């Protein structure tokens, strides 16, 4: 059986949860087995996971699981995996999933591959693929243990409806309180967090200063995109650190990445080159970023970006 840990936030399933269940369902099909989902804590919409291929949804609730602690969550998920005799565990490759994957692998003495982006192949061993070297290559890895733990890269597959809502069943597993006390969680409200964003508008040092970011924010707003930036921009405090993408920042793989005034250094590309479509706006025709781009606009961003915003407004009004 394939067990998917479906992440929630504020009592609702995250987009990553639907992706993970779609992935779990396809993996179960490849193995000729069944896919079930697990939610921790309250999740009003948990039954919806049935639509994406979960034949059952289990729910574990315990006061010790109200705040995230990898130790308590691991006990709960490993407990459920044992209880249900799950052979493949699927997590999301989010900060939560990444904090759990290694723990679960160690606890279950299972082989693990973090950040997979394709459904396993099962002829001649259980093999998965994942990007390595910051997206500069793809590795095929074989897991040789009976129990396997995987985390699915965000935006790697589209959620797909294959069935109907299912009932949610309470599952009781032993949980112990952990030693971490979460005191505060601050989230940027209103926008989709970068790792989950499908559309991203990003800008770099070509912006000249933080006071010029209005045109980037406006473009992002019209598009419904999340904003990002290059590292020097975050380092000099022009933009908040959580917007920094690249090798040392966040790695993202949106459907659309628009980069304005970013040169496209290798360390920047490392975090964004898995984006499906890349648009580069730069006044220097020799900027290295053009080599990694699908669409390029050679021009002054202070003219091009507002023009693009206008064109998008027109498009949105017509469609």
């Amino acid at each position, binding site marked *: 059986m394939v067990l998917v840990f479906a992440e929630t936030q504020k009592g609702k399933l995250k987009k990553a949860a639907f992706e993970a269940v779609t992935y779990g369902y396809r993996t179960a099909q490849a193995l000729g087995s069944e896919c079930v989902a697990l939610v921790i804590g309250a999740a009003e919409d948990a039954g919806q996971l049935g639509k994406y291929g979960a034949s059952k949804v289990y729910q574990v609730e315990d006061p010790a699981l109200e705040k995230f602690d990898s130790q308590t969550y691991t006990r709960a998920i490993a407990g459920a995996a044992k209880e249900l005799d799950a052979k493949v565990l699927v997590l999301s490759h989010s900060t939560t999933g990444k904090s759990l994957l*290694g723990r679960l692998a*160690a606890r279950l003495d299972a082989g693990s591959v973090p950040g997979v982006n394709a459904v396993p192949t099962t002829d001649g061993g259980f093999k998965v693929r994942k990007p390595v070297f910051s997206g500069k290559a793809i590795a095929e890895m074989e897991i040789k243990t009976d129990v396997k733990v995987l985390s699915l890269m965000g935006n790697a597959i589209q959620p797909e409806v294959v069935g109907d809502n299912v009932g949610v069943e309470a599952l009781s597993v032993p949980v112990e309180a952990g030693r971490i006390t979460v005191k505060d969680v601050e989230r940027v409200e209103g926008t989709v967090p970068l790792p989950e964003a499908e559309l991203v508008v990003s800008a770099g040092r070509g912006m000249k200063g933080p006071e010029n970011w209005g045109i980037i924010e406006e473009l992002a707003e019209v598009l419904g995109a999340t904003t990002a930036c290059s590292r020097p921009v975050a380092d000099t405090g022009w933009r908040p650190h959580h917007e920094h993408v690249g090798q040392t920042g966040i790695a993202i793989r949106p459907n659309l990445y628009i980069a304005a005034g970013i040169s496209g250094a290798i360390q920047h590309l490392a975090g964004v080159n898995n984006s499906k479509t890349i648009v580069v706006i730069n006044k220097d025709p020799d900027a290295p970023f053009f080599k990694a781009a699908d669409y390029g606009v050679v021009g002054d961003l202070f003219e091009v970006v507002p023009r693009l915003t206008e064109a998008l407004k027109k498009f949105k009004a017509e469609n």
Partner: protein
Amino acid sequence: MKLLVCVSKTPDTTTKIKFTSDNSELDTNGVQYIMNPYDEWYALVRALELKEAQGGSVTILNVGPAENDTVIRKGLAIGADEAVRINADPQSSLNVAKQIAEYAKGEGFDIVFFGKETIDYNGSEVSAMVAELLDMPFISYASHMEMDGNNATIKRDIEGGVETLSVDTPFVISAAKGLAEQRIPNMRGIMMAKRKPLKVVPAATFDDPVATVSYELPPEKGQVKLIDPENMDELVRLLHEEAKVI
């Protein structure tokens, strides 16, 4: 405080990645190796700051073959007191983690530091594995840490935000950007590093539950399509009709 920093060796960020002719291994010809930036810049430096503030010792630990000693020496030059190399060349994260846990088990470290991920494998899993094997709390992606006695207040990066938490030692932590500022080793540090102990410990035998079968390069991007900067309607049309992303 007794502090352990686990450090790994990775190809330099600017390395051009190529593979051996059967695509089963990285072609190491001409590859420059460095200490994994997260381990060096953030984990190690924060550990050194703690030691400087409250006393104690900083040990760096690497699981790897003898050729890793150059990278390990750099950690000593930056300021670690001693180094340990577990003499093994494991092929999987779980094996590395078991080697680390096996060593750390009896040593009574107050904090075990990791980098948030290695920049070659981008796994971000060895740290969590060690935490589980040592049955300790694990704080991943820490960007800020203050100690007060044996209690730490830590900020960690989460999706679209920051979480603040409190935990008592012992614990395992993985370092993200912001935890400390990179330090460049000076001449004196480099000289002193030569006299600091680098202990080589024999490895225990564990299985590798995962194996890399082969590598491939991502499909080449086609030629970039250049759009007239005066005609953004055309770009919008292409994004809608051709790329189908809006």
